[in-house]
């Protein structure tokens, strides 16, 4: 890496800042609550968007497991979606239990939760004055990118957009792009937090 560029980006320092900010998020009850709420909310929306979660009060409570579930865990149903191996009916909601979708959704939801929890800390414990809530919005765009890709081109039907070859190619890159941007946003927001501040109880 170019020395001047490296000096400007300060990669080691950025990683250390992000790690410290992450630890701070996990130490404080309020930021953990923000991260947890966002994680659960995003994961719920993610599972609903991929069709794994639905409201089905008409179905009695029950559990159905497909045959050879372990062999089918990694069967893909789309570029970034995986086969469900069980149906869980609670009497209110139906969950298609897909470990792959749950892991992927949980990972993205965790990143979004961490981003927004750091944005919260950047507001309540800023390293410098003048930081607004814009950093939280910064995290929401890649979160949307990472989330919509899992629905595949069918989301275009909802939006009323006709698919083209270019658009479909873009779809395959939205998830890695979204995850990458979430990391960039995380590093950016981490630098805006005063990690030396006292932890809340």
């Amino acid at each position: 890496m170019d020395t001047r560029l490296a000096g400007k980006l300060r990669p080691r320092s950025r990683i250390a800042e992000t790690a410290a900010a992450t630890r701070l998020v996990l130490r404080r009850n309020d930021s953990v609550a923000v991260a947890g709420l966002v994680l659960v909310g995003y994961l719920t929306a993610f599972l609903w968007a991929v069709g794994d979660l639905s409201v089905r009060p008409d179905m009695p409570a029950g559990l159905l497991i497909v045959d050879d579930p372990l062999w089918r865990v990694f069967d893909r149903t789309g570029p970034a979606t995986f086969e469900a191996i069980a149906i869980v009916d609670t009497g209110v909601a139906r969950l298609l239990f897909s470990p792959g979708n749950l892991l992927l959704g949980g990972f993205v939801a965790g990143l979004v939760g961490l981003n927004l929890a750091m944005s919260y800390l950047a507001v309540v414990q800023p390293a410098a004055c003048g930081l607004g809530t814009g950093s939280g919005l910064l995290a929401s765009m890649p979160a949307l990118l990472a989330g919509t890709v899992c629905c595949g081109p069918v989301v275009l039907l909802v939006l009323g957009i006709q698919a083209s070859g270019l658009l479909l190619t873009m779809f395959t890159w939205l998830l890695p792009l979204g995850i990458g941007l979430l990391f960039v946003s995380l590093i950016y927001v981490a630098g805006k937090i005063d990690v030396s501040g006292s932890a809340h109880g």
Partner: protein
Amino acid sequence: MERTPTGDRRRRRQVLGGIGAVGITALAGCLEGSGMPAGSTDEEVDDDDAADVNDGPPTVERSIPEAYSIDRLNEESMSGGPGPDGIPSIDDPRFTAADDPPANLDGGDPVFGVEFDGEAKAYPQYILVWHEIVNDVVGDESVAVTYCPLTGTAQGFYRGASEFGVSGRLINSNLVMFDRGTDSWWPQMLPVGISGPHEGAYLEEFQVIWTTWDRWRDQYPETTVLTEETGHARDYGSDPYGEYNPPSGYYDNERTLFPPLASDDRFPRKEVVIGARNADGAMAVPKDALRERTVIEGTVDGTPYATVYDEALDTGYVYRNPDDTSVEPDGDTFLVDGETHAPDALPLDREIGFDAMWFAWYGYYPSTEVHE
């Protein structure tokens, strides 16, 4: 996952009960129909007797309108999202009797009916929307009942020892199948091989009837019906595209996922037409017009055709009528040269016809004649 021509026999475990009440139930086996498929057309050139799975499906010599070269069709092939088998076909279908239908099957829900020498089977649309292909065995015949939600087409094909799978690609918004024997790819509506060893060959079709469960059961009380025991975990009862009972969402609006190969605004895009094609050309009859008039006549490349309405099943049958024989409605039946006949048994050559959304039919067959 390795698959066999007859499907891998999967057992499913179901734990049922409310909170604190748990039981394990092995799901029931299937009731297979029997009988030989009837009503197929064209000369078979690749018989499936003693066929090997690696031979792929049987093919036939056909002459039907080809508006696009195979190269063009391949260029127009787009990913619908899932990869091959990402939408899993049903390879071990389980059936139940008509008096014990799946709980989610409403009387007004669409089913795809197949009748072979008195044996009848119904394939509910709400199950096939998640699978698109059922590799079934009826009597001695191995067949595939296929459905494409985006074009509203249900068609039947002989499959020999092979099986069909969903490629995940779409042309003209229409399902592209592949056979697991040769990995040849087949657009459903055409249905010509566009790649692989069977490139340029045609599949052999049989008639599938798009109707409702109540209507099918009334006509075929001994029918069996496909169950939700497909071996896959899907949210049966919800449809990712919309609803048919009553129509809503994709099935009832003007949106298409992909631009059609050709467009025509004589009808709304999702208007249902009954389409048929053979060496004479292609023709389409709007289903609403057929319901109203019960007999619709027209010509294809100068040859007369008559399409008659079957109110019991809310479907239509297309007949080639080269002598321009008189066909008149007579209650639920039809008078042909003064003789009374059931709508599905006129003394004329019946063509295979199937329901399709107008945009999809015209997109593939822009030279189509419209009879209304």
